[in-house]
């Protein structure tokens, strides 16, 4: 298994490099190759989760061993949290590729589309695997540059403008992250995350660290579209082709924004009260304001984009609350419950928001519009889309027995047990708001009188699109099993454990 870790980066990179060469000569090569690559990665990560007993694998690139306990090469670290993120990235990526077969027919340059998609997945895999700070920056740039191009894939006015806005904010974020990394290198003289954690714990000075932490939170907050920095998200996510919106909303903001925040602030920096408070406040703002902004939207994909901000707020609240409880020496069980709720909501959100964007794509494919006012009565003509989007809407608004209910329940119970009653009340309130705007979506899109006046009859979408949607719809139900003991230990618990034993990460890697 040890040597297989690097395959998560090599395989998508290799397919991305092969597609422009061979794809010109063999029709459908690009689709087959990207599908096979992602299928292979899915099996690989499932194999690790079910047989590896979640031991932490450290892969030293180019075989450079540490000298006097100072790592000199780049380390790749596959532990519970990375495996959790890898599972999300590759499985959603697989379904999205399958969906794109039919959807992307109306665009030209399919070779470039699959190349960029593979590059984006390679970048995200690299980000979640790496144990080196500068390497994280490099792979993050691969993922975001590919996503800039993918957002502008339709090359119409809206797409170009959204992509430019996304590039401006994303560029500022990248430079802030680079500045933070350089300051950190100045302070600690090393780039390995475990080693940085070790060095920082021996230094008494905290002013520098606080400054760096704030810069990094701003940078990754822009990448993850937390509320004061969210301006790019609704445009970018609604303008991209639907499979890409599904990747961006479902996976990208988690892998490069939220994951980086979690990893850096749990495992690299020592947790401090100020940072925990900042993260919780940002999460609360995102949750409430994102939800309120979503109600007023009539463009279907913009509604979903704002709801992404709101749902990511739940994740960040879970994470921040865990930090707050840990730092105030609260009950460790409650802290781990909050973190588990956050991570559980992360995987759930990947599934149902991915599915909802695919539904929006299917509606756009069939009717040619994204405006909710011009839809209506689609339930009769599009049974698959209608039923899957119903299941996703129920899941996202937290109706039992769908998965969204359990993750929200975990977060709320943890908030009550940790005596953050205001947070618990807000979480319940936002859940009700979510239900309201998804009922609006359901009503206007599927159950009103038919208002659609296009030329052709509305038909159900082709098989590949329907297949992806059905699989995700079923996953919405099946994932609720993750909460029960027996299954929880395979996927969720190892990830939570990594975060709970905050400093264990560094000592495990540098071996002190």
């Amino acid at each position: 298994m040890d040597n297989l870790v690097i395959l998560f980066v090599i395989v998508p990179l290799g397919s991305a490099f092969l597609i422009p060469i061979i794809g010109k000569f063999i029709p459908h090569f690009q689709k087959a190759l990207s599908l096979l690559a992602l299928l292979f990665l899915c099996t690989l990560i499932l194999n690790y989760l079910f047989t590896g007993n979640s031991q932490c694998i450290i892969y030293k690139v180019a075989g450079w061993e540490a000298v006097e306990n100072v790592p000199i090469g780049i380390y790749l670290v596959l532990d519970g949290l990375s495996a959790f993120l890898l599972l999300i990235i590759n499985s959603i990526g697989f379904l999205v590729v399958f969906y794109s077969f039919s959807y992307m027919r109306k665009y030209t340059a399919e070779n470039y589309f699959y190349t960029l998609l593979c590059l984006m997945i390679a970048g995200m895999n690299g980000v979640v695997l790496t144990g080196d700070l500068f390497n994280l920056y490099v792979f993050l740039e691969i993922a975001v540059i590919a996503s800039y191009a993918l957002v502008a894939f339709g090359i119409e006015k809206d797409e170009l403008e959204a992509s430019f806005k996304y590039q401006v904010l994303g560029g500022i974020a990248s430079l802030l992250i680079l500045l933070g990394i350089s300051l950190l290198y100045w302070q600690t003289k090393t780039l390995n995350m475990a080693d940085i954690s070790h060095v920082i714990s021996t230094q008494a000075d905290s002013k520098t660290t606080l400054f760096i932490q704030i810069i990094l939170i701003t940078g990754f907050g822009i990448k993850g579209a937390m509320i004061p920095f969210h301006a790019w998200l609704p445009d970018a996510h609604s303008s991209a082709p639907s499979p890409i919106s599904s990747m961006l909303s479902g996976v990208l903001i988690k892998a490069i924004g939220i994951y980086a925040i979690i990893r850096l602030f749990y495992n690299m920096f020592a947790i401090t009260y100020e940072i925990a408070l900042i993260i919780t406040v940002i999460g609360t703002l995102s949750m409430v304001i994102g939800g309120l902004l979503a109600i007023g939207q009539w463009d279907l994909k913009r509604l979903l984009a704002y709801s992404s901000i709101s749902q990511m707020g739940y994740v960040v609240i879970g994470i921040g609350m865990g930090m707050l409880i840990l730092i105030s020496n609260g009950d460790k069980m409650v802290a781990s419950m909050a973190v588990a709720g956050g991570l559980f909501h992360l995987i759930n959100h990947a599934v149902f928001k991915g599915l909802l964007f695919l539904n929006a794509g299917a509606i756009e494919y069939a009717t040619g519009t994204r405006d909710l006012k011009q839809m209506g009565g689609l339930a009769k003509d599009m049974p698959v889309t209608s039923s899957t989007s119903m299941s996703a809407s129920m899941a996202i608004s937290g109706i039992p027995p769908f998965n969204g209910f359990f993750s929200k329940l975990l977060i709320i119970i943890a908030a009550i047990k940790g005596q953050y009653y205001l947070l618990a009340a807000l979480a319940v309130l936002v859940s009700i708001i979510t239900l309201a705007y998804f009922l609006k979506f359901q009503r206007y899109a599927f159950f009103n009188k038919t208002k659609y006046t296009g030329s052709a009859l509305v038909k159900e979408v082709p098989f590949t699109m329907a297949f992806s949607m059905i699989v995700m719809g079923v996953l919405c139900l099946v994932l609720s099993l993750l909460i029960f003991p027996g299954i929880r230990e395979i996927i969720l618990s190892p990830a939570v454990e990594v975060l709970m034993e905050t400093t264990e990460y560094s000592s495990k890697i540098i071996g002190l």
Partner: protein
Amino acid sequence: MSKIVKTATGLLCGVVFMYGLYIITHGHLTPGGGFAGGVLVAGSFILLILAYGSDVLMLRKEETESSVTESSAILIVLILAVIGMFAGGAAFMNNYFQFGEVGELISAGVIPLYNIFIGMEVASALLTIFLAFVIYKKEVLK
């Protein structure tokens, strides 16, 4: 462009091209390396295109060729890196050749090879980008 400009550019870009190659091949000995040299090589081609101009059909053909070159070059870099998993230290990106004497031209294991292919990749990538801009301006923004 006038004849003087064309002749002068022809001579100059030969020199730039050779200097680029020198920087690429001596990347492990003197300042510079695959990136600087690759940009110089691309620059020599860009100079030629700027001075002589060319009709769009020719440019489009060159664009396809340079983008294929680019993909193949970076694929070779990846393959060179993967070979490390089976040779020598059995790790990705491992330096598995004989090192040789420090300071000789043929030394430093795989590093010169990396330099050459990275230089090729950078040169063709920049040329592709430039040609894409030029073709776009010629076809659309007349």
